[in-house]
């Protein structure tokens, strides 16, 4: 399959076939998940309706993190095997990952205000999400910093790979930093126990976000491929 899709037009055909179905399923899950999350799940006994932000916040955080890993994997395939689609996939993933990490930060902030009373806390998880966001920004900035547009692909891929290796180190050191400095008392320590009635909307929305992510990435890849086709037609005259 890896070699099979090395041919862009073959990939394009496959995407054209799959995409409409994926879209329908993704929006189905999204609608059902939102219904569960907003209408058909109990309010938290402490947090009230504010807890419903979690249904967006947590899946977005998962997607943001996993999309950086995916970015690193694509960069790896691009650098080692020069797989043409890997580069396009990486460039398609990065802005979406940045978007999801921004969404995580924004919803986290909105959630924090009613619960903690402040918009922002320098908590370990928030800080490492912020750093992840800057990793994405760095990737985007580097890949678009060159006058020849395709010139940025390789440096950016190297950066993504280094970022992927560094991500656990950053995460670990931020956690350590956070525990050594006295943690803010409003933060609760230990895991959060979630009632099963809240789990089903969470997982539905997680699947919905995942599908949505895949749909958008495929669409972006298709657009890039089509753009390149047009450009080469223009160049050939």
């Amino acid at each position, binding site marked *: 399959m890896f070699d099979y899709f090395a041919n862009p037009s073959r990939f394009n055909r496959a995407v054209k076939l799959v995409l409409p179905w994926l879209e329908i399923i993704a929006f189905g899950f999204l609608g059902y998940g939102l219904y569960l999350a907003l209408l058909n799940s109990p309010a938290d006994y402490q947090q009230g309706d504010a807890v419903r932000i979690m249904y967006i916040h947590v899946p977005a955080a998962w997607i943001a993190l996993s999309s950086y890993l995916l970015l690193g994997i694509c960069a790896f395939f691009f650098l080692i095997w020069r797989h043409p689609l890997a580069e396009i996939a990486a460039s398609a993933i990065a802005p979406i990952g940045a978007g999801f990490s921004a969404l995580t930060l924004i919803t986290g902030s909105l959630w924090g205000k009613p619960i903690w009373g402040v918009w922002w806390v320098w908590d370990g998880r928030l800080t490492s999400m912020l750093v992840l966001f*800057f*990793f994405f*920004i760095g990737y985007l900035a580097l890949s678009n*910093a060159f006058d020849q547009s395709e010139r940025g692909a390789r440096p950016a891929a*190297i950066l993504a790979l*280094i970022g992927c290796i560094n991500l656990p180190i950053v995460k670990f050191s*931020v956690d350590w930093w956070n525990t050594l400095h006295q943690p803010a008392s409003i933060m609760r320590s230990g895991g959060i126990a979630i009632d099963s009635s809240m789990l089903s909307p969470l997982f539905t929305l997680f699947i919905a976000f995942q599908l949505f992510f895949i749909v958008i990435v495929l669409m972006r890849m298709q657009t890039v491929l089509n753009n390149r086709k047009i450009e080469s037609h223009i160049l050939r005259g």
Partner: protein
Amino acid sequence: MILIFWYYFKREFEISISQITDILSQLVFFILIMMLFPIALGPDPENLKEFGIAIIWIAAFVSLTPAYDRLFSDDYIHGFIEKSAHNAQPLGCYAAAKCFCFYLITALPLLIILPFICLMIGINISFYGEIALSLALGMFGMTLLGGIASSLVLGARRAAILGAVLILPLSLPILIFGCMSGLALSEDLSMRPHIFMLLAIDLCLVVMALPAMQAGLKNAIENA
């Protein structure tokens, strides 16, 4: 290989000596950034003492990050990097020599004036050795990160800012363990775990930086 490393290092050193004002202005920049803190935070000595080591680290980071962009860009523009690809030695050797020299000419002057800095912000001078050690380790890692970033941004627009954007998120672990070693000092705890962490990070970066710089430089040559 070691011989070639030494030749590159010597060349680098000769160039840096011919541009000694660059080293001095780098140092002045560091002191100026440090001076901003008492002015912004107020002259209260207790306050400064508390934030002292953090101030030194931030000043070192901020003054160095824009400088890294120049690590490879001069040689790139003058065509030296591509010519040295023909010396039958890997570009990693050139990059390593370059980074090492850059490290020496930025870290040494800073460590020399560090005692005075300590006096100015009220850090106990008897801690000089410990602070200098952690700073030396931290700056070594920073230089490697700077080398990676510098090799990646060759030929880019606004390379200096871009380099800083790439370096700073990656350098957080160094800053964290560097400052925590200072914190441990002021609380009379052993700073050895933090020093070992810094060392571990440095070693990780050495392993990562050499192939990354080599790939970055090679890519830059191909698109010259």
